[in-house]
């Protein structure tokens, strides 16, 4: 047993982080928000060319030939960078929807009565008939609502892989807001010292790290066991980490955190959307309880 990242996995994570910093750094993020949140097709193809969507396709099928543990690391980086778009749906469609693997085709799906990125998508998985636009809480995730279908007999489950990759994005966001809170607490001065020296602030930051580490261990382990109960538990903890950390990050930033200029609200809103789109808390808790 060695539950650490291998050297290859560390290199992959570094590579994706560098790629995303180059293609979707802070300026690109803010520009995307200011432009009203249209899907950037160039960026999408760039992700395709880098193997983001074809990551788990076999090499003979033109893919990268990696597995779910690697996909989890890549999606953690996507969450960290607040990368927009129906990333999980397109990744899962690679190999079955032509063009998805290359980033030429954008695939979205109906989930929990919502469809993200409907207008931008080329292909929709699920029945989006009757979809009406809503004003999405997340400026970088346009949403449509569809009438909720009657519950399917036997319960149509969200794909465990989709749940896990979404959880990985949440972990990335939780890690990022922890880092942002710590960074701010180390430079912002009040009462003649940096606020990171105050226990009240330190303890908020420590709590953020604990939530992140708990969720990260859960997500990474679930990527190895692919156990649906463990995946549900990982999503539950990752949702909690992403949403609670965004709130604590906002708190550490004080009034600045409540402004549109600070990025923390973007993390919070995306975390809410991800928490709502795949296996929301109540169902995740039920799924884990059923395993007891």
């Amino acid at each position: 047993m060695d539950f650490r990242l291998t050297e290859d996995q560390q290199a992959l994570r570094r590579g994706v982080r560098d790629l995303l910093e180059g293609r979707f750094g802070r300026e690109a993020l803010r520009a995307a928000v200011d432009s009203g949140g249209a899907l950037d097709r160039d960026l999408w193809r760039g992700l395709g060319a880098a193997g983001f969507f074809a990551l788990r396709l076999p090499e003979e099928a033109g893919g990268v030939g990696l597995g779910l543990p690697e996909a989890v690391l890549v999606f953690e980086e996507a969450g960290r960078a607040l990368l927009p778009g129906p990333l999980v749906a397109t990744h899962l469609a690679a190999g079955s929807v032509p063009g998805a693997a290359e980033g030429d085709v954008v695939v979205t799906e109906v989930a929990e009565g919502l469809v993200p990125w409907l207008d931008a998508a080329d292909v929709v998985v699920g029945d989006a008939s009757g979809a009406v636009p809503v004003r999405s809480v997340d400026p970088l995730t346009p949403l449509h609502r569809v009438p909720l279908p009657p519950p399917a007999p036997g319960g149509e489950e969200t794909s465990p892989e989709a749940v896990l990759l979404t959880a990985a994005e949440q972990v990335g966001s939780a890690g990022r807001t922890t880092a942002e809170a710590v960074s701010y607490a180390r430079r912002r001065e009040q009462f003649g010292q940096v606020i990171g020296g105050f226990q009240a602030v330190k303890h908020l930051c420590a709590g953020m790290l604990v939530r992140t580490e708990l969720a990260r261990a859960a997500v990474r382990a679930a990527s190895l066991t692919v156990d649906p109960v463990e995946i549900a538990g990982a999503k539950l903890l990752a949702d909690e980490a992403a949403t609670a950390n965004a709130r604590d990050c906002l708190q550490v930033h004080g009034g600045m955190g409540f402004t549109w200029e600070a990025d923390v609200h973007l993390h919070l809103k995306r975390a809410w959307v991800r928490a709502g789109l795949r296996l929301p808390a109540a169902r995740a808790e039920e799924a884990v309880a059923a395993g007891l």
Partner: protein
Amino acid sequence: MDLSCTDEEEEFRARLAAWLAATLPGLPPRPDPLDWPARRAYDCGWQRRLYDAGYADVHWDASPTQRLIFLEETELAGAPYVGANFVGLLHAGPTIAAEGTPAQRARWLPPVLRGDEVWCQGFSEPDAGSDLASLRTKAVRDGDAYVVTGQKIWTSHAEVADWCELLVRTDPDAPSRHRGITWLAMPMDAPGVTVRPLRTLAGSTEFAEVFLDEVRVPVENRVGEENDGWRVTMVTLSFERGTAFVGEVVACRRLLGELARAARKNGTWDDAVLRRRLGRLSAEFQALWRIVQANVSEAQATGGVPGAGGSVFKLHYSHARQELYEAAAAVLGPDALDLGRDWTLDRLSSLSYTIAAGTSQIQRNIVAERILGLPKGR
């Protein structure tokens, strides 16, 4: 990332599981939790069985993965807890193994492994609990002995212990209070040692005050250098936080399973709020087990001593375990107010988890300062 075990490790697991299945039914009944001499005898008897079967040294000599397998299998099987041997096996033993001389290792380690000698921990003092470095118990060198005077408190198992891992101040004029501290092994039957049991809120005498009046401790009982005790102590504490609670996570997962069965039986399982609460706790303990595996992997790769990741684990573990007993109370209803139930005693005992081995507030400081790099401050 790899969670699988080697063939050799799986073979160890299978052998241990078979031994447990054969051995546990023959154990004597558990003693009254309030009867310490009986508890000592029971816990040491269990340790002796482990020794005779070749499993006693798993805490020190086995690979971390093997240690995890040991803790997982013994807890899953419902084997006795380390109990009175906790300090000897999990704190003092590893510390002496890491920092002691060959003679000290030969003197103290085998009796711990055989269940012949029980240790207690003399760290905390009335004015030095969380602020451990402010301890005042003094030791003055007199020939070949230290003469120790002072008071310790919260000393678990002191009533039945043979040895005490004792922190004393050997240089009151040291430039910093972290220097001038020395780690001694003190025999509990030395003249001048007085133990006064303290009653916990659970009604038991779990711990004690220990008064030290000119107790002579041979210089050869010093582990590490004189005035270098703080560093030695940090080794002890990293074991305490890093690995000492590992088996208890498995115990919590077992308890949660018992609780779910009880809830299904008495109908509280139909309460969606309670059912979901148990689901959430299950996810948390599963994740805590994964954190343990991550910490152990890290320790295995970096030389054995667990790092600050132990604080991350302990912070969440101690809160989650208290939450487990709160959920248990909701499931048990009126039975939760019956002191005759194990669950009720355990619920009361769990209140110590966020205090013992460094309070949650101290752990948050450690996480914030050592992992996140925030400045020291108040």
